[in-house]
């Protein structure tokens, strides 16, 4: 049962072959057994989960069940959950119990899902290894000496190790897709504005986007049907007709034009990653897709642009964590300035401080034009590259990350090297585009490789359709991690 996909579990619940309470218990037991090793969850509230599961079973008995009613899932600890700790992986919010629910949390609650708990993450979503979490890193279920990726590493580890059939994540520069790739699960970063950011603690507002993580594309579609939609409380949330993200799951691959940017297949990519990705692309070609070589000339600037814009927005977004109204406040201080300094020095970890410093610098008087404004200009060039590329192809494929999951502690003292790990995931959010990572094989060490599919705005259903066809023919997404056998 635990190895079933969310879609299969939904079927089982509908048929009555399992109750939500039974399914929730299975998940809670597995969390109890494995979370000590994986550290995927920061908070688990079994009583609350079972209460919600009972309510879901009653709802089903009353004939009011929806497609997700009774499905247990986990929320990344960046989503505010009423009455539950919402830490964002930081000491700053280690004591913060949210008085309100994020839009995404409300949506899933309305759909009748069961909240298993809150998953581990890099502090304030800043990191790609989960090692910046105040609560210690989550571990990769394929090899616990390796990172699960980040920042949504806890969600990825939980889904990969079958602690939860699905989880939410957020993606700013790859925080859904890179951990999905590192743990052999699927993750979708939707078009900017499709999922409301209300109640999702902000890292970089113009890039942040919530999205689902699950074991297959079909499940992501189901989850998107619940998550997406306009929310008047987020001014950047788009007003669009409701769409069914499952509608293209059986669309044929014949005639699909797959763009292959030369920049995504160059130097610096682990040979095994490149080999698996090429094999997957060959499968698509063999099944009717047409390959189109193209260029994204400005994509080489994506990482530097991102590391100006994201820290700039973050430095401002994180100003509210000042110890005045909630969260951590230093115990002793001499005056107001001292309270701010001590509170923020104690409350934030090194990576968060680094980015606040970078962001403050690039927005400073005399530097704004040279850094922030320039970065915004280049950002538009990157978006234009994609727009031109999508005149010649329907979607773009390439590796999600240049390597498989690295070892815990690798490059700890070399942040720039770490930032380069996001080289393929950063362009899509800079252009506001949807992008998806699915597993496409393993390296010799048994670590998963991710294939990234990027589409034009609102092409989520198209991406999910292509991914689903591939997953009907492959079983990478069905493999159970070595370190967490069933």
């Amino acid at each position, binding site marked *: 049962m635990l190895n079933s996909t969310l879609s299969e579990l939904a079927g089982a619940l509908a048929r009555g072959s399992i109750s939500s309470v039974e399914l929730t218990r299975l998940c809670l037991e597995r969390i109890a057994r494995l979370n000590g090793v994986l550290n995927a969850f920061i908070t688990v509230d079994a009583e609350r989960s079972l209460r919600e599961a009972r309510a879901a079973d009653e709802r089903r008995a009353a004939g009011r069940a929806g497609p997700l009613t009774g499905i247990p899932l986990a929320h990344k600890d960046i*989503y505010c959950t009423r009455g539950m700790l919402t830490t964002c992986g930081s000491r700053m919010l280690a004591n913060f119990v949210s008085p309100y629910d994020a839009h995404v949390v409300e949506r899933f609650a309305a759909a009748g899902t069961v909240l298993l708990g809150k998953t581990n993450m890099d502090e304030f979503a800043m990191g790609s290894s989960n090692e910046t979490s105040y609560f210690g890193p989550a571990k990769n279920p394929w090899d616990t000496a390796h990172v699960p990726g980040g920042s949504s590493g806890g969600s990825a580890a939980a889904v990969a190790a079958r602690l939860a059939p699905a989880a939410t994540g957020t993606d700013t520069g790859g925080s859904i897709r890179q951990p999905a790739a590192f743990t052999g699960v699927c993750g979708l970063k939707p078009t900017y504005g499709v999922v409301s950011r209300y109640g999702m603690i902000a890292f970089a507002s113009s890039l942040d986007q919530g999205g689902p993580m699950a074991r297959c594309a079909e499940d992501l579609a189901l989850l998107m049907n619940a998550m997406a939609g306009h929310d008047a409380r*987020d001014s950047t949330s788009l007003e669009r007709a409701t769409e069914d993200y499952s509608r293209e799951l059986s669309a044929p691959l014949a005639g699909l034009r797959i763009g292959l940017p030369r920049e995504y297949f160059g130097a610096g990519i682990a040979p095994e990653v490149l080999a698996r990705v090429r094999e997957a692309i060959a499968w698509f070609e063999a099944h009717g897709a047409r390959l189109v070589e193209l260029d994204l000339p400005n994509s080489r600037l994506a990482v530097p642009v991102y590391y100006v814009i994201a820290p700039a927005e973050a430095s401002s977004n994180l100003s509210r964590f000042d110890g005045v*109204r909630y969260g951590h406040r230093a115990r002793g201080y001499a005056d107001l300035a001292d309270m701010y300094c001590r509170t923020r020095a104690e409350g934030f970890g090194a990576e968060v401080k680094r980015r606040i410093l970078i962001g403050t610098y690039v927005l400073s*008087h005399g530097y704004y034009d040279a850094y922030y404004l320039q970065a915004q200009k280049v950002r538009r060039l990157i978006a234009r590259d994609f727009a031109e590329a999508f005149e010649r192809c329907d979607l773009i494929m390439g590796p999600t990350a240049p390597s498989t999951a690295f070892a815990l502690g690798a490059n700890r003292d070399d942040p720039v090297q770490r930032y380069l790990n996001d080289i393929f995931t950063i362009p899509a959010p800079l252009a506001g585009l949807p992008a998806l990572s699915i597993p496409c094989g393993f390296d010799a060490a048994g670590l998963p490789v991710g294939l990234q599919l990027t589409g034009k705005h609102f092409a989520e259903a198209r991406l999910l359709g292509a991914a689903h066809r591939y997953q009907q023919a492959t079983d990478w997404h069905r493999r159970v991690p070595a370190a967490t056998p069933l």
Partner: protein
Amino acid sequence: MSWEIVVGIETHAQLATRSKIFSGAATAFGAAPNTQASAVDIALPGVLPVLNGAAVECAIRFGIAVGGTINRRSVFARKNYFYPDLPKGYQISQYELPVVAGGSISLAVGDLQKIVRLTRAHLEEDAGKSLHEDFHGMTGIDLNRAGTPLLEIVSEPELRGAAEAVAYARAMHALVRWIGICDGNMQEGSFRCDANVSVRRAGDAALGTRCEIKNLNSFRFMEQAIAYEARRQIEILEGGGRIEQETRLFDPERNETRSMRSKEEAHDYRYFPDPDLLPLVLNEQDIDRIRSQMPELPEAMRERFMRDYELPKEMAQAITSSRETAEDFEAFWGHLLKLTANCDRIQGAQAANWVMMQIGAALNKSGLTITQVPISPLDRATLVSRIIDGTISHRAAGEVLGAMWSGEGTADAIIERRGLQQISDAGAIEQLVADVLAANPKSVGEFRAGKDKALNALVGQVMKASRGKANPAQVNALLRRKLLG
């Protein structure tokens, strides 16, 4: 050596919207601390701002009223700084692209009208309040005011001295109230000004170094602060010193300005466009709709009163000092025209002026405002019509007005009850005149001997004999005819 004082004013007008600029919380003044602060106002993690359209409408009304450019696209920016009553650690304001650019306002400086150009007006949110008094060794934070919509209106440095600056502030105060975007309550902080003050030698083209005086919340303080600050700067310059650019605070108890922070200590606000808010894009239909709903502006109304009603300038000025007064006058005047179809305009204006003076005096005495006058415009018009048609004298009218004010009824009822009708019956007056002439041969003699003043004594006698009810104009004319005829 003479000095020229140069002042520019930044005004923060709190917009009269029911809810805040980026949240649904109420904006009412005086609620218990933190009871009108929503999740957005206290900046909980994860919350986002949503722009209140009513605040934008206020800004557009202002832009139309001052003849400024209403930017079809403007941008909200974050102004970053730390302070305990600034919950997000940044204020959402507008920086490079404000909603209104340019425009001007006309103000009376002595007998002259002066046009002062505006630089810009932009939308922003207010901060909360720090309460230092109520807590021993601690500071309380009240976030009720956080997120209240403000329009910051910036003038060009075109004001010359404290008096002009105050005239500007008064004109601006009247205008924002006139167009209904701000209640103008200065005690509650709904309308507050900062003054940028510099001085230069008369004839110099370049501006001197300026100092900004923060948070002037009364016209009197503004006048005192600017006068003090100009004196201070002149003394420094005349002593061979230099003005340091700085921000200063006015201390009304000591009637002086004090340094708050120097240029070196000035914040680097790290402005950048707020990624949580889309650019504010205005379409023509919305602007046209708002334009069509604009009230007639005071200047246009003043000119119309002078042209159509032939009111003297001072009176037109007084009537248009506030929209309430003007609307009250229009109602009164409308009734008066209906009641006295064939009276001449001059006579009407005089009578209207008289009743307005009386009401003005009564308001001053009672401390009431124009909207609280206990006599309706119709009743006032009826009273004036009784002066014009000769039913009562001005003197009797004063008595009637007093009785109306204390609720004794309509003008006609009071005239009737108190028997205040003038005697305009020619026969009755002729009899009185004949009696008085017969009884006062001495005055008659004096008048005939060329002593014009003697007539006044005779008029007085007739009025006395009529117990004040004879029509004085008629008495005057009749006496002259008898004496000279």
